[in-house]
């Protein structure tokens, strides 16, 4: 299996080097780079699945270049294997998509650099989840951020791309600062830079150190995952990156933060405290609600998808929060079920969010605009993209036959297993959290009805829709693969859960067995609350639909169909502008939640003389971005003011500089005299 690991890394490096020589006219080289990335993804899937299915851990040791900082060691245990599988299968799909996508007019210039950065970006992600040394983990972590920064700033002529890149890189750096301090706190305790001694030493940590390390890790990885107070970079950065890259960023990059968090919570910090669980749950539910509430108000498709990533991170954190809570009140079986729920949602989110971004990329490549207000009726021009977007929209809104529902159901049940814990607080709040999760998933359904409906259905709102036509084969194949995954991950739920059970075993010891979660085709929960058979549900729906179709066809014959214009109340001029717009669609929710949004609207009215028949020239409605306005903007303004003030100490007068020296000298002498 080591061979496949090395092969994967080698292919990425080869792909990167190949792309440096590729240029716009040499098509086959840019196609080769993405093909190589795809093959590398394939190799990755091979050895990660092997490890998940029970093969011994893959481990590899590079000769370390730097003294004092430990050895560069790679080990692929079940947890790393799961994340490598995630990275590989999504990068396989995005690479196939990218073969066609990079040829479209979107990304004509800068292809060589884009290809190189793309391969380098996936390579660093794979390395991050497999490295076993603190120092090299931080190096690959920051390399991942650098690669994604350059990808976000790829179209650097646009000022908003530069601004997004800047915010993204600074927020990531803040996260890395916290992660560095968490790791060094661990190092100070154990004296070694390797991960294995850290997890071996975990039970001996004193409570004060554990709490400190937990907080640093939560804030550090939370910033990278896009947890609510630290999320402002996500809706800025993802839309700027090319779509197949933002699919990877949303699908997998923020999951490396979840990987880091899991490693800290369940391997490095030994037995957690109960308040950790509630802290994570609070952050999780805020991320879920705010993520979807802001996603609803977006007009730009990729920003909408970015906000919905924040919502899904919230769902994952809900699972992790309950897992931490259960393992704090030493119920390992319940805790492992919650971890399995979280990991399952990580995988599902990678599948459908990747597909959403890819189809958004397809739409972008044809219509050259991300703004939903001037799209519409694309289903007739791009049927395949529309179908894939529909599948992923249904999956993300957790509609039953697809994978979204399975992981949502697992998260619901892991929340409701809170009934079994003896603390009254969690017994009351767990169902409340579950109902808020239901509320959020209903809003997601609304959000994606709006997205799909406004973009693909109805009549085209602007001419850029008319020139668009279906994307080429490689992009369709990429999207098709992910759509198939959305269905496959639902049907194969029992198999997948038994694999994830192995990862849970790594956390909670071997007494956690997969038959606590799976009985033949049924997913059961250890607390005996309920059971669910995804395959049965899928078959039931499909069979019933077919029966009705056949029944109506047999009993009532073909039935005459007459094509006529849509109902226009006799006005005879049903123009596309009479349709509901994205802003209009989310208007009721904006009114209901006006306390949160504080919506402001500006209407420029123009009346040709008579004030009754006035025509609104321009309507602009903005939603108050709560976190930016209340915390981040004042902070940066305050820093600016302080810096201006401090600038005054450099006035240019040499006498002033001399008096700085003499005053400091006198103060030091006094300090010496006092301290004696």
């Amino acid at each position, binding site marked *: 299996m080591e061979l496949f690991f090395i092969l994967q890394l080698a292919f990425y490096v080869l792909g990167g080097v190949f792309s440096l020589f590729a240029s716009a006219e040499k098509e086959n080289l840019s196609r080769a780079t993405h093909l190589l990335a795809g093959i590398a993804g394939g190799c990755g899937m091979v050895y990660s699945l092997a490890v998940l299915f029970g093969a011994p851990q893959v481990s590899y040791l590079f000769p370390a270049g730097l003294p004092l900082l430990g050895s560069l060691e790679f080990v692929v245990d079940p947890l790393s294997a799961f994340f490598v599988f995630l990275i590989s299968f999504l990068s396989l799909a995005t690479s196939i998509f990218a073969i066609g996508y990079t040829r479209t007019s979107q990304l004509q210039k800068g292809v060589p650099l884009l290809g190189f950065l793309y391969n380098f970006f996936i390579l660093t992600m794979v390395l991050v989840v497999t490295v076993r040394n603190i120092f090299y983990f931080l190096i690959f972590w920051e390399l991942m951020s650098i690669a994604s920064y350059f990808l976000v700033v790829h179209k650097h002529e646009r000022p908003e791309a530069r601004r997004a890149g800047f915010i993204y890189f600074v927020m990531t750096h803040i996260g890395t600062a916290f992660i560095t301090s968490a790791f060094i706190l661990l190092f100070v305790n154990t004296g070694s830079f390797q991960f294995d001694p850290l997890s071996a030493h975990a039970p001996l940590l004193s409570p004060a150190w554990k709490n400190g390390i937990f907080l640093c890790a939560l804030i550090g990885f939370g910033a990278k995952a896009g947890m609510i107070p630290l999320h402002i970079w996500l809706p800025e950065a993802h839309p700027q990156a090319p779509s197949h890259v933002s699919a990877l960023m949303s699908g997998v990059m923020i999951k490396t933060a979840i990987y880091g968090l899991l490693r800290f919570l369940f391997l490095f910090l030994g037995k957690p405290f109960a308040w950790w669980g509630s802290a994570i749950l609070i952050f999780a539910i805020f991320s879920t609600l705010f993520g979807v509430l802001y996603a609803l108000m977006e007009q730009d498709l990729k920003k909408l998808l970015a906000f919905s990533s924040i919502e899904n991170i919230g769902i994952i954190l809900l699972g992790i929060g309950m897992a931490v809570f259960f393992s704090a009140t030493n119920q390992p079986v319940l805790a492992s079920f919650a971890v399995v729920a979280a990991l399952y949602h990580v995988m599902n989110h990678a599948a459908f969010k990747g597909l959403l971004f890819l189809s958004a990329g397809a739409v972008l490549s044809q219509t050259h605009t991300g703004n939903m207000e001037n799209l519409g009726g694309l289903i007739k021009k791009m049927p395949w993209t529309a179908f894939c977007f529909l599948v992923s929209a249904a999956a993300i809104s957790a509609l039953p036959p697809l994978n979204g529902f399975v992981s949502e159901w697992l998260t619901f049940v892991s929340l409701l297993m809170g009934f079994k814990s003896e603390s009254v607080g969690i017994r009351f709040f767990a169902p409340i959290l579950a109902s808020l999760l239901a509320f959020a998933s209903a809003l997601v359904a609304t959000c994606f009805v709006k997205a799909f409906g406004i973009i693909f259905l109805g009549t085209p709102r602007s001419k850029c829709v008319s020139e668009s036509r279906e994307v080429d084969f490689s992009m369709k194949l990429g999207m098709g693969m992910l759509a198939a995954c959305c269905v496959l991950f639902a049907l194969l739920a029992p198999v997948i859960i038994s694999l994830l059970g192995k990862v849970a075993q790594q956390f909670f010891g071997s007494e956690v067995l997969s038959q606590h979660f799976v009985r033949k085709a049924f997913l059961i929960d250890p607390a005996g609350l309920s059971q669910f058979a995804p395959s049965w549900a899928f078959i039931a729906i499909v069979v019933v639909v077919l029966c009705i179709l056949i029944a109506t066809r047999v009993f009532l014959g073909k039935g005459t169909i007459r094509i006529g214009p849509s109902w226009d109340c006799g006005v005879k001029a049903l123009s596309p502008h009479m349709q509901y717009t994205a802003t209009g669609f989310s208007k009721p929710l904006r009114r209901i939640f006006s306390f949160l949004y504080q919506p402001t609207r500006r209407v420029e009215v123009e009346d040709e003389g008579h004030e009754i028949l006035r025509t609104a020239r321009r309507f602009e409605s903005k939603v108050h971005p709560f976190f930016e306005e209340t915390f981040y903007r004042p902070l940066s303004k305050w820093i600016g003011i302080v810096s201006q003030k401090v*600038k005054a100490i*450099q*006035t*240019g007068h*040499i*006498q002033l500089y001399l008096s700085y020296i003499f005053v400091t000298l006198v103060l030091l*002498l006094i300090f010496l*005299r006092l301290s004696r």
Partner: protein
Amino acid sequence: MSMEHESILSLIHFMGMAFLIFSFAMIASPQLLSCVRFYALHSLSLAVITALIAYGNHVEHLIVPAILTLVLKTWVIPQIFFKLTRRLGVHREIESYINIPFSLVLSTLLVFAAYYTTGDLKVLRPVFSNEFIPLAIATILIGMLMMATRKNAVSQVLGLLLLENGLFLMAVTMTFGMPLLVELGIFFDVLVGAIIMGIFVFKIRNAFEGIDVDDLTVLKG
């Protein structure tokens, strides 16, 4: 021998007082040239003190720095300054941020502070007599005050040289002077420093038509 010792001791104390008076005179002198002359006298008293200490305590290797001070600081450096001011046609008055009476009050305060802090210093048991330590520190503080308040580049250099004299007195009274090699090096550095500062004053006058340090505030932030 003891009587001779007494007379040397009293002579040294007299020269110490002269040393302090000349530093007051330097900070109080309105004219640049008078300030340079006082500097020459100040170095002369320093040279005499060094010679007397050398003779009184039979420390032969102190004679060389005494002679060097006499030659360099009472004759060579003042000549440089005279030639400089004549060649540059620099106007004679000394502009300062604080007027002369106020700077005199300040310098007396500094002298008092020097005596207060280091007067009964148990820590420093100087080799020779311990009342020269506060005198040296007072001179250093006056030198600092002079540099910090003068607007004219030349008078800033003079403040620096005054500070060096204070340091040199401290060295002599604390440890009978440093090893000869180091003494020579320090003198060489002071001389080259003075020459280079002279060159730069010359450059400033060419560039800024005047050696008022206030024009030198272009570089900010």
